[in-house]
C-alpha cells in the first residue's frame, strides 16, 4: 500500500497531476463570493464559514474523477486488481492520496481565505479544525463515487450528481462546527458528530468501493 501511495503522490506533483488545482479553485471561488456579495463586512462574516465549507466541497469534487479513471484508462487498475494488494487497500490508498493532495492543502489554506470573507477571530482555528476532521470523509465518499462511475465515458457529471447528496451530512456538521467556533461557543458535540461520519466512512466505504470496482472491472 505504501508503494501505491508514494507512486500516486509522485504522479500528483508531476506535470498534469493536478496537485494544487483544488486550492487554486478554492481561492477563485472564495474571491468570487466576496466580489459577488460586495463590501458588506458583517454579511460576509455571517456566511463565511458556510461559504468556506461549500468551497471546500466543490474543490474536492473537481478532482474526484481522477481517482480511478486514469488507472482504468491505462490498464493499471486491472493489473492492481490481480496483484497481491487487496482492492480495499487500493481504494484506501487512493482516497488517502486524494485527501493529501486536495483536502489537506485546503485545511492550511482555509484560514488565509477566511480573511477574504471577514471571518471572526476564533473562527480561523475552528474552520481549519473542522476541515481537518471533515475532509477525509469527502475523499472517502468521493472514492466510492469514483468507483461506481469508473469506466463510464465522461462520467464526471454523473459522479458529481451521485456524490453531492452524500456530502450533505458532512457539510451540515462541518459548517455547524465552524460557525459555532466562530461565535466563540463550545463545538465539541459537532466535532464528535463530524468525526463519527469520517470514521464511519473510512471503516465501511473501502469495502463497498472494492466490491463495486470488482463488478465494474468485469
Amino acid at each position, binding site marked *: 500500500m*505504501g*508503494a*501505491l501511495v508514494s*507512486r500516486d503522490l*509522485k*504522479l500528483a506533483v*508531476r*506535470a*498534469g*497531476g493536478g496537485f494544487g488545482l483544488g486550492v487554486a479553485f478554492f481561492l477563485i471561488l472564495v474571491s468570487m463570493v466576496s466580489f459577488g456579495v460586495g463590501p458588506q463586512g458583517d454579511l460576509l462574516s455571517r456566511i463565511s464559514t458556510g461559504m468556506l465549507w461549500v468551497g471546500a466541497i466543490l474543490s474536492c469534487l473537481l478532482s474526484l474523477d481522477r481517482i480511478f479513471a486514469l488507472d482504468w484508462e*491505462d*490498464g*493499471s487498475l*486491472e*493489473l*492492481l*486488481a*490481480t*496483484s*497481491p*494488494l487487496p482492492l480495499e487497500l487500493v481504494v484506501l490508498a487512493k482516497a488517502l492520496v486524494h485527501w493529501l493532495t486536495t483536502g489537506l492543502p485546503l485545511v492550511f489554506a482555509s484560514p488565509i481565505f477566511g480573511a477574504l470573507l471577514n471571518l471572526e477571530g476564533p473562527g480561523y482555528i475552528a474552520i481549519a479544525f473542522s476541515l481537518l476532521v471533515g475532509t477525509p470523509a469527502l475523499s472517502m465518499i468521493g472514492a466510492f463515487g469514483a468507483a461506481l462511475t469508473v469506466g463510464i465515458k465522461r462520467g464526471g457529471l454523473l459522479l458529481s450528481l451521485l456524490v453531492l447528496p452524500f456530502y450533505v451530512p458532512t457539510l451540515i456538521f462541518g459548517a455547524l462546527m465552524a460557525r459555532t467556533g466562530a461565535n466563540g461557543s463550545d463545538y465539541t458535540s459537532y466535532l464528535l458528530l463530524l468525526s463519527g461520519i469520517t470514521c464511519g466512512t473510512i471503516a465501511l466505504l473501502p469495502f463497498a468501493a472494492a466490491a463495486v470496482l470488482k463488478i465494474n*472491472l*468485469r
Partner: protein
Amino acid sequence: MSLNVSDLSISRGGVKVLEGMGFTTIPGQAVIFRGPNGIGKTTLLRTLAGLQPVLGGRIEVDPENLVYSGHLDGLKAMLSVGENLAFWASVYGNRDITEAVKAFELNKLLERLAGTLSAGQKRRTSLARFPVSGRSIWIADEPTVSLDSKAANMFKRCVEQHLELGGMAIIATHVDIGLPAAIEIDLSLHKPGVEKMRKIHEV
C-alpha cells in the same frame, strides 16, 4: 502448484462464448490459446486471472501464484521506466528489477519517462513485469503485439528461462511465439454447440 481447469464455460456480456474447456498445466509447461478474433481468448485469460466470474466448471489454482498482463500496457506516462518497474516490484514484494531489465534490454531506457517511449518499447517494459513479479504462473494476452522480431525473441527467451526454472505460462496469441514444447489449444473447438454437433456426426 499447478493450474487445473475442468469443464469450464465462460461468458462475455451475458453471451456464452466458450464451453467444455479443460486443461492442466504443470511446472515447466506453457499453454498457448489460438483462435479467431472474438472467440473468447481475452475473456478466458481474464477469467483465469480472477477478473471475471466463471459461468460453469472449475478453475483450481492458487491466486497467489498468478500474474496477469492484458492488452493495455499499464504504464504510467509520467513515471520513468525504472520507477514503473520498481513500483510493481514492491507491489509484488520484490526489490530486484535488474534481471528483468537485462532480459528485455531496458538499461538504456531506465531514466526515460514511459510516456516518451515507442509502442514496442512500452510493450517491452510492460512484459518486464512478469519476471519482476516473481510469480510462477504468467498469464499473457497477445504479449508480442507491436514487438519487432528481436524483442519478440527476448520475450521467448524470458519465457523459456521461466519454464526451465519450473514456472508456467498461459499465452493467447495470433502469431507463432516459437515455443515448440507448448500445448496448443484451439478455442474454436470449444465454441458453444460445437461439441454437440461433433457427437451428432459421430452417431
